[in-house]
C-alpha cells in the first residue's frame, strides 16, 4: 500500500517509517505538516495513496482539519484514514470520526498495534478493489448495473454525523477501550426495503439511502450522535452523554420529514420510503464484545420492527378481504 503519514514530530515519522517497513511491503511517504501533505497530494502525477496516518494535534492545521480537506478531494473521499493520537484526546477522537476517520492508533504505539490497524486497512482496500471490479464487470454485461447487494453496507457522503460502518465499529470499540459506556444504540430501518431494492438500480437505491440518512441526521441534529448505514436498509445510531432517545417519537418525526420530502426514481416515479425504529440498547456496563453485540442488537431490532410493520400491514389487508 502507498501510505502518507503526517506528524509534526520527526521522531514519530521515523518510528512510523521503521514500523511500517517491519510489517509488510508498504511504501511510506511522510510530511511534517498539513500544508506539506496537501502539497504532496496536489503534485501533478502523484500516484494515489491507499491509506493516510494523521496526527490529530498539530500546530496551524490540526489532523481533523487536514482530514476534512483530504475528504474534499474526490479521489480520497473514502480512502482509509488512521488517526494517530494520545489516549487523552477523546474529544479530538470524536471529532475525527465525525470528519471521516476510519480508526485510530494511540501514542505511544507498538509495532503489533500498528500491524493490526494497517491489516484492517488492507482488508478494506482489497474489498473495495473487488467491488470496483464487480462494477466494471456489470457495466459491460448490462446497461443498468445492479451491483449493490441489499445486505451490503454502503458509504453515505456529505451527511452530517454519518460515518462508514467499519468506522462505526471502530468508534464503538474505542468507547469500550476508554471505559465510556454512557451510550445508547438504536436503529432505523426502511420499510419494505426489499421492494425498493428490487425496483431501483444501484444508483437510485444508493440515492434513496442517502436521502433517508439525511432526514434521520437532520432529525437528530442538536444531539451528540454518530450514525452509519449497516445494509438491509438499516441505520444504526450511537448517542453519548447519557441521552436516552424517545425512539417512537423520533420515528414519527423522521417519517413526517420523509413525507414532506419529494423523492423520485430516474423515471420520475415518486418514492415514499418510511422507517421503523428498533429498541434503544443501553451500552452502560457492557464491555468488549458485548458492546459490539449491542450494535448488532440495535440493527436487528430495527430490521425486525420494519418487517413486523410490513407483515401487520399485509395481514390487515388479508383480514379485510376475507371480511
Amino acid at each position, binding site marked *: 500500500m502507498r501510505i502518507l503519514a503526517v506528524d509534526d514530530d520527526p521522531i514519530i515519522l521515523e518510528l512510523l517509517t*521503521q514500523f511500517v517497513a517491519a510489517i509488510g511491503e508498504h511504501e511510506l511517504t511522510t510530511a511534517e505538516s498539513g500544508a506539506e501533505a496537501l502539497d504532496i497530494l496536489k503534485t501533478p502525477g502523484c500516484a494515489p495513496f491507499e491509506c493516510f496516518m494523521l496526527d490529530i494535534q498539530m500546530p496551524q492545521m490540526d489532523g481533523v482539519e487536514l482530514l476534512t480537506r483530504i475528504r474534499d478531494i474526490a479521489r480520497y473521499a473514502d480512502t482509509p484514514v488512521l488517526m494517530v493520537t494520545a489516549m487523552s484526546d477523546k474529544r479530538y477522537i470524536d471529532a475525527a470520526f465525525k470528519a471521516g476517520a476510519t480508526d485510530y492508533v494511540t501514542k505511544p504505539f507498538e509495532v503489533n498495534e500498528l500491524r493490526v490497524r494497517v491489516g484492517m486497512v488492507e482488508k478494506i482496500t482489497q474489498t473495495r478493489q473487488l467491488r470496483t471490479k464487480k462494477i466494471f464487470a456489470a457495466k459491460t454485461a448490462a446497461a443498468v448495473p445492479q451491483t449493490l447487494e441489499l445486505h451490503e453496507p454502503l458509504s453515505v457522503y456529505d451527511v452530517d454525523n454519518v460515518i462508514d460502518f467499519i468506522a462505526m465499529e471502530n468508534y464503538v470499540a474505542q468507547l469500550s477501550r476508554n471505559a465510556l459506556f454512557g451510550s445508547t444504540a438504536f436503529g432505523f430501518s426502511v420499510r419494505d426495503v426489499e421492494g425498493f431494492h428490487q425496483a431501483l438500480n444501484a444508483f437510485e437505491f444508493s440515492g434513496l439511502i442517502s436521502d433517508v440518512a439525511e432526514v434521520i441526521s437532520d432529525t437528530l441534529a442538536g444531539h451528540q450522535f454518530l450514525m452509519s448505514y449497516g445494509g438491509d436498509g438499516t441505520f444504526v445510531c450511537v448517542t453519548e452523554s447519557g441521552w436516552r432517545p424517545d425512539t417512537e417519537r423520533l420515528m414519527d418525526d423522521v417519517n413526517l420529514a420523509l413525507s414532506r420530502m419529494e423523492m423520485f426514481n430516474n423515471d420520475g416515479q415518486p418514492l415514499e420510503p418510511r422507517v421503523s425504529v428498533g429498541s434503544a440498547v443501553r451500552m452502560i456496563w457492557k464491555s468488549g464484545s458485548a458492546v459490539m453485540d449491542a450494535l448488532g442488537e440495535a440493527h436487528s431490532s430495527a430490521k425486525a420492527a420494519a418487517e413486523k410493520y410490513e407483515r401487520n400491514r399485509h395481514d390487515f389487508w388479508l383480514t379485510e378481504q376475507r371480511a
Partner: protein
Amino acid sequence: MDGGLDMMSGLEKIRGRFLDLLVTRQQSIAHHAVLAYESHTLDEVNGNLAAARDILHQIAGTAGSLGFDDLGNAARMCENEIVAHLNGPDNDLALCPDALLVQIDDFVEQCKGMLH
C-alpha cells in the same frame, strides 16, 4: 532474523535522535515554564504554558515506543496538569500555580538525570 536486527538497529538510531532532541526539548520546557511563572499578562502566562504543553505532548507520544516508559508517563502527567489548568477555573488569571512549576521542574530534572 535480519528483519528483527534491522528493526533493533533502526530503533537504536531513533532512540539516539530522541535523546539528542531531549537536550533542547527539556531546555525549552524549562524556559517556557520560567517565563510563564514570571509573566504578568494572561497571554504570556497561558501562551508559555501552552508551548511547554506541546513539547511535553511530543515527548509523551514517543518515549514509550522507544523504551522510555517512565519518562513518557511523567511527560503525560505534566501535560495533563497544564491542560487541566488551561481549561480550569483559573485560566483567566495571569498566574502559573507553584505546584505546576514544581511538577514541570521535577520533569526537567528527570530528563537531566536520564541524559547524564
